[in-house]
């Protein structure tokens, strides 16, 4: 296996290696020469656009071509818009084309135009001189510098907020070089104007000096910021490369390259836990890797290339080849370095011997075990497998690990298993036809979810589903999501008839969990396929989800019934409001009439908001009873009597129409009462208006208006009983005992005379009470006597009536001080009554 190290080059105490990713599948006429190239990180797509200025005739359209990382063509179309300054990719694989006039066009992976936005009005005049696309935790951003030497930033193109940065003193035209930094949740621009270095943030432009920059330099001509925005590299016209941190506080190293011309590209190459970070500089024919250790590696390039910074290395894309240049991870170095005695290396050797059926295997194994580093060895092999690109090498390492594991009793299986799974996924997406050359490190950083998204975006649905199933991703986030995207794509196929698409979608999606048919339908509707959308909505089990789209498609009636079905009143109300604005009043009411739920909801709303509409609603329904109620309710809010009466008259009319004689009569009487009360108020100055009949009578009787009370009593046919009660209480309250006595004698009381006794007692007038005891009916005699506290009388009455219950009641009221004889008589009477 010596050949594994064949492309390793030492740099300081570490090694750098080139891994060949693909032989490019494209056939380019002029290679990458005269092309504007932009490749997305994480093995993303590559876009090429011929330099327009070099075209002989301006009328000829340059071709824009999009390729996968393996050079498989994904889209190609002639560029018809204005001259492009910069191309770039967003974090979700959309293409950005920044034009000279500051317009940014967004295309998808397949060259379909999505939208555009502008970098501000000022740019239109001054033109964009240079532009950069950058990625930050907030998303993808765009930075430009205009002809007026002003910088404008857009932090996140999905939430566009333009920020114009302050002026840079003494800057004419474009700076010699610049870069965008993201630090402490702030985005800044670092720029060099000759030898001067400035940091430009929202509010100020601060000159800075990197510590220990060699003094020979009189101009900084290129700069590079690392993938993590932590490190900065500056290249000066004296051929010095300065490396340090982006906060310009620490210097890592300075290397003299002996090349004085400006490099075409300069990129950091680091990896997590890097031992020997380096900067890769590219000139026309030369690629130089300059390490912090001040050593360099030189490669000659035989074709035009482009460097793409990655999380753990640099990809070098050429016309014929696509390579990855990275520092050899320590696990790989330990295992494959020549004459390595690392545990992993020994285990690999042991396994090799074991496959050859040689007893040497045992020797190696023993050696590892003696040092008791077998666990370490297995771990190393598993880890190294992740860093290897060739499946054969991966397999060899994993087999060795598996072999070593047999001799360990408690080695946790998870790392091994998950590495096998990850590699299987990675190998399948690295495949030439897919063309996503992800490393294991990048994959872990990016997460499976994002990978699935990217596959879906590339319309590689079967592969995405396979991966989801293989990784046992929960359906909701995995298979279902992919299927939904597939369906959204499917409904856009214009040539297929609605029927077959709907069927295909429903067959494939079936009962998959968490599928939202309404989203798919919405997509169909966006493509102008309303019928298809309605068909798809039928599959949506949650009726609530169907409603918004149905409204959008102007199927409001259907929307209303669906909303009602969902039981969500908010939805119903949404539809009702929509209908109200959309339909004329008559139709609107008719629609509501057929939907009682919506109707009562709307009524509730009207009650608080639009009283008049409520009336119209009842009118429309010929609901005279409710109309009557409506007028009655309105009458109570009215303070003027005339208005009140006229409202009540309307109520009477409505009640009559509703054949509700009772209500009509009651309302009429109320009007009569109101008029009566007003008259009396005017004549006597009583405040009667609004009282109930009962209260009016009471007020009259209390105020000694007996004549008027009599009149009311007759006019309103007040039942005798009520009138007697009323008069009785009113007189008693006034303690008008003479009048009370007269009243009692006026005719036979319809409520008996016990109440007379009781009201007197209540007023603590036993003397008056006694007057009425004799008039009380025999059944109530006992009660009457007891009420005035006449025990003996009560006893007499009870004994006379021979009622056991009543005797007991009297007995219960007796106290120890009661006359003995009386008690005995009562007891005797009770026993005789009981016998009977």
């Amino acid at each position, binding site marked *: 296996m010596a050949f594994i190290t064949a492309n390793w080059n030492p740099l300081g105490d570490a090694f750098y290696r080139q891994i060949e990713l693909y032989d490019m599948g494209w056939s380019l006429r002029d290679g990458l020469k005269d092309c504007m190239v932009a490749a997305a990180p994480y093995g993303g797509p590559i876009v090429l656009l011929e330099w327009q200025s070099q075209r002989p005739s301006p009328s000829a359209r340059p071709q824009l071509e999009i390729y996968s990382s393996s050079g498989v063509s994904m889209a190609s179309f002639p560029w018809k818009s204005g001259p492009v300054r910069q191309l770039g990719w967003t974090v979700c694989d959309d293409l950005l084309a920044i034009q000279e006039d500051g317009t940014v066009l967004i295309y998808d992976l397949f060259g379909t135009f999505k939208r555009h936005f502008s970098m501000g009005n000022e740019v239109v005049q001054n033109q964009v001189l240079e532009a950069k696309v950058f990625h930050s935790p907030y998303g993808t951003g765009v930075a430009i510098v205009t002809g007026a030497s002003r910088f404008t930033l857009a932090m996140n193109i999905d939430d566009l907020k333009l920020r114009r940065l302050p002026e840079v003193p003494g800057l004419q035209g474009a700076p010699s070089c610049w870069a965008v930094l993201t630090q402490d949740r702030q985005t800044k621009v670092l720029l060099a104007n000759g030898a001067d270095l400035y940091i430009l943030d929202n509010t100020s432009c601060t000159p800075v000096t990197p510590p220990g920059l060699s003094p020979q330099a009189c101009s900084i001509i290129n700069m590079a910021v690392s993938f993590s925005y932590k490190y900065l590299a500056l290249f000066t016209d004296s051929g010095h490369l300065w490396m340090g941190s982006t906060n310009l506080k620490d210097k890592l190293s300075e290397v003299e390259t002996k090349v004085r011309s400006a490099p075409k590209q300069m990129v950091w190459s680091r990896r997590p836990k890097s031992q020997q970070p380096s900067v890769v500089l590219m000139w026309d024919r030369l690629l130089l890797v300059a390490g912090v250790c001040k050593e360099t590696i030189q490669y000659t390039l035989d074709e035009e290339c482009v460097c793409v910074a990655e999380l753990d290395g640099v990809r070098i894309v050429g016309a014929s080849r696509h390579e990855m240049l990275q520092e050899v991870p320590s696990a790989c170095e330990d295992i494959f370095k020549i004459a390595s005695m690392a545990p992993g290396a020994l285990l690999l050797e042991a396994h090799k011997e074991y496959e050859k059926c040689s007893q040497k295997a045992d020797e190696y194994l023993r050696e590892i075990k003696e040092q008791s580093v077998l666990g370490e060895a297995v771990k190393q092999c598993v880890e190294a497998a992740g860093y290897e690109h060739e499946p054969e090498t991966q397999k060899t390492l994993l087999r060795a690990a598996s072999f070593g594991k047999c001799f360990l009793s408690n080695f946790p299986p998870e790392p091994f298993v998950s590495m096998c799974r990850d590699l299987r996924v990675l190998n399948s997406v690295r495949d030439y036809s897919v063309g996503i050359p992800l490393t294991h490190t990048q994959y872990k950083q990016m997460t499976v979810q994002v990978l699935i998204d990217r596959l879906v975006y590339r319309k590689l649905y079967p592969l995405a589903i396979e991966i989801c199933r293989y990784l046992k991703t929960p359906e909701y986030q995995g298979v279902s999501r992919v299927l939904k995207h597939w369906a959204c794509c499917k409904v856009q196929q214009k040539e297929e008839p609605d029927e077959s698409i709907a069927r295909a979608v429903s067959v494939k999606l079936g009962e998959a969990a968490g599928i939202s048919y309404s989203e798919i339908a919405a997509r169909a509707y966006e493509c102008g396929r309303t019928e298809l959308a309605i068909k798809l909505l039928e599959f949506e089990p949650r009726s609530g989800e169907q409603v918004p789209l149905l409204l959008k498609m102007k199927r409001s009636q259907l929307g209303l019934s669906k909303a*009602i079905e969902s*039981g969500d*009143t908010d939805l119903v*109300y949404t539809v009702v409001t929509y209908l109200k604005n959309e339909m004329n009043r008559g139709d609107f009411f008719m629609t509501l009439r057929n939907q009682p739920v919506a109707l009562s*909801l709307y009524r509730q709303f009207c009650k*608080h908001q639009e009283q008049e509409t409520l009336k119209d609603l009842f009118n429309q329904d010929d609901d005279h009873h409710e109309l009557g109620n409506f007028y009655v309710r309105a009458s109570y809010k009215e303070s003027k009597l005339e208005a009140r009466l006229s409202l009540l008259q309307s109520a009477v009319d409505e009640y009559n129409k509703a054949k509700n004689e009772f209500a009509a009569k*009651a309302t009429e009487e109320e009007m009569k009462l109101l008029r009566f009360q007003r008259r009396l108020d005017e004549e006597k100055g009583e405040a009667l208006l609004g009282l109930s*009949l009962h209260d009016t009578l009471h007020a009259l009787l209390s105020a000694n208006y007996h004549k008027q009370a009599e009149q009311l009593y007759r006019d309103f046919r007040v*039942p005798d009983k009520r009138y007697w009660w009323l008069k009785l209480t009113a007189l008693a309250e006034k303690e008008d005992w003479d009048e009370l006595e007269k009243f009692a004698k006026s005719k036979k009381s319809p409520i008996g005379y016990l109440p007379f006794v009781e009201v007197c007692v209540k007023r603590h007038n036993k003397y008056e009470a006694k007057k009425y005891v004799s008039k009380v009916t025999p059944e109530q005699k006992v009660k009457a006597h007891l009420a005035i506290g006449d025990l003996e009388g009560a006893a007499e009455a009870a004994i006379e009536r021979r009622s056991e219950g009543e005797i007991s009641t009297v007995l219960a009221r007796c106290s120890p001080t009661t006359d003995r004889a009386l008690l005995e008589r009562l007891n005797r009477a009770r026993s005789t009554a009981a016998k009977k």
Partner: protein
Amino acid sequence: MAHSVRRDAPELPDFSLLKRLARDQLIYLLEQLPGKKDLFIEADLMSPLDRIANVTTLKEHEVDKLYKVEHKSIVSTSDQLCFLIRPRIQTVKWICDVVNADKAVGKFRRYKVIFCPQKFYACETLLEEQGIIGDVTTDEWSFYLLPLDDDIISLELPEFFRDNFLEGDQRWVRTAGSALHLLHSLYGPFSKVYGIGRCSKMAYESWREQVKEGEQRVRQADIGNVFLIDRDVDLVTPLCSQVVYEGLVDDIFRIKCGCVEFGPDVTSSDKSMKVMLNSQDKVFNEIRNEHFSQVFGFLSQKARNLQTAYDKRSGMDIKQMKTFVSEELKGLKKEHRLLSLHIGASESMMKKKTKQDFQEMLKTEHSLLEGFEIRECISFIEEHINRQASMVESMRLLCLLSLTENGLLPKDYRSLKAQYLQSYGVDHLLTFSNLKQLGLLVEQQPGETLTVMESRVGKLVNDKTAGKLTDAFSSLAKKSNFRALSRRLNLVPKSDEEYDLRVPRDMAYIFSGAYIPLSCKLIEQVLERDGWTGLEEVTRMINGHEFAVTAGSNGSDPRGRSDAQRIILVMFLGGCTYSEISALRFLGKEKGYKFVVVTTAITNSARVLESMLDNHA
């Protein structure tokens, strides 16, 4: 004195978690508006809020001043206003006025409206119509459930009853569904759900939908079974006078959010006093479920015990005295204080309730329930109205009469109504219209002929989608069938036997042995039969919509934890009374269940009927 416990009763889950969740969310919402702010609180949210977060907590989160929403112009000087309101149109309208008034005088403030427990589209539309949607930020405080006690949880939505059953406005159904969902995710998964009533069914469906949408966690269930019941399934029970201590306190003093204010006549001082009534109150806990006639005896026994405990002091040496003072005295003092309060309350109630007319009222009620001497009852009611005794009481008796008699005879209906209007004012015409719509007070229909309205409803019911939701009209078609139900379910025990209230033999004790509440009887029967089989006749008379669903395979093992299976969540949609809760507690002790009562609000006859009034809407 407590009833003997038949089996080991399972422990109730800890519902204080609900409070903590609500508080944390409220704090989070308040912090969304950093800096000092004035907080305006909807009047009926004040008490529930007080149970969740006290003033100190609010002040800690930079609430400067607290105001009650009073629908008047405001006097706040703060430049940040926060409104904590129910999603009601009137309140939102008021906020619009406040904001627009500020705008008119060029005052700039920040406004935040927190809707509790959720916002409605209508409210947002209103903000939009008034052109202030851009000026305010809105949020939802999903405070659905307030635990009032160990076994009572309330949604504190008294308007549920009127909105849903009278106005046919189903906006709160989803809220009920969400509340159920919350309980399910915290204390579920429920393995069996029973229910009766249209609203229950809808709440159940709304809940299922929310379960489907969310992700599920597998956990051990704390609550196994759920019973949902609509208030309009049984309207008789809440209209009866309550005679169990807790119910009686509610009827007379009105318990608000688990707290009652005793006036000077109870506290025997010149101040009134707010008292929390829950199981923490040892004295109250022992008498709350007792028939009122038993309470006095119990309290005096208790007083004697207390005295003995105090008396222990006399024979003590210094050391014993020291331990007594440090350990027991505080407890005794507290008990003493509570005891004197409850004795005061009992006395005050005694004064009111032992009066003759109350006894006669109870007698009338019992006769109505039994269907006995109806004419006497009618004349009693008539006299009650004619003497202009309490307006609500008169109405209560009228409704009871109508419910138990399946409507009033046309002649009685008219004359009683006319007399009622004379006594209490003609505006009650609207009240009667409401009562009729709800089926609380109706005229007997001659024969079996369908009225126009009923046939209209019938038509709608045949139409599937409409039929599902014609709540407002269904009550018209519905007859109470009380008499038949009572016979079939044995709701009224035979009156010839003496009922010993000290040793209750069934749930009827909560009404002095005169009536077993229909709602609780249904629950008992369904649990006994594990479903509705054998009750077909009953459900037909109640007008159906019953259901019983066993959860799918997701419940790991339905009989896995028998404890959870014996904890039953009963959800009353439209409110329940303390008497019903007492009855369920009794049933639980008899059968070895524990009931957790979830209700849209605690109700009683006065609250039910007051919600029907329309004259000051």
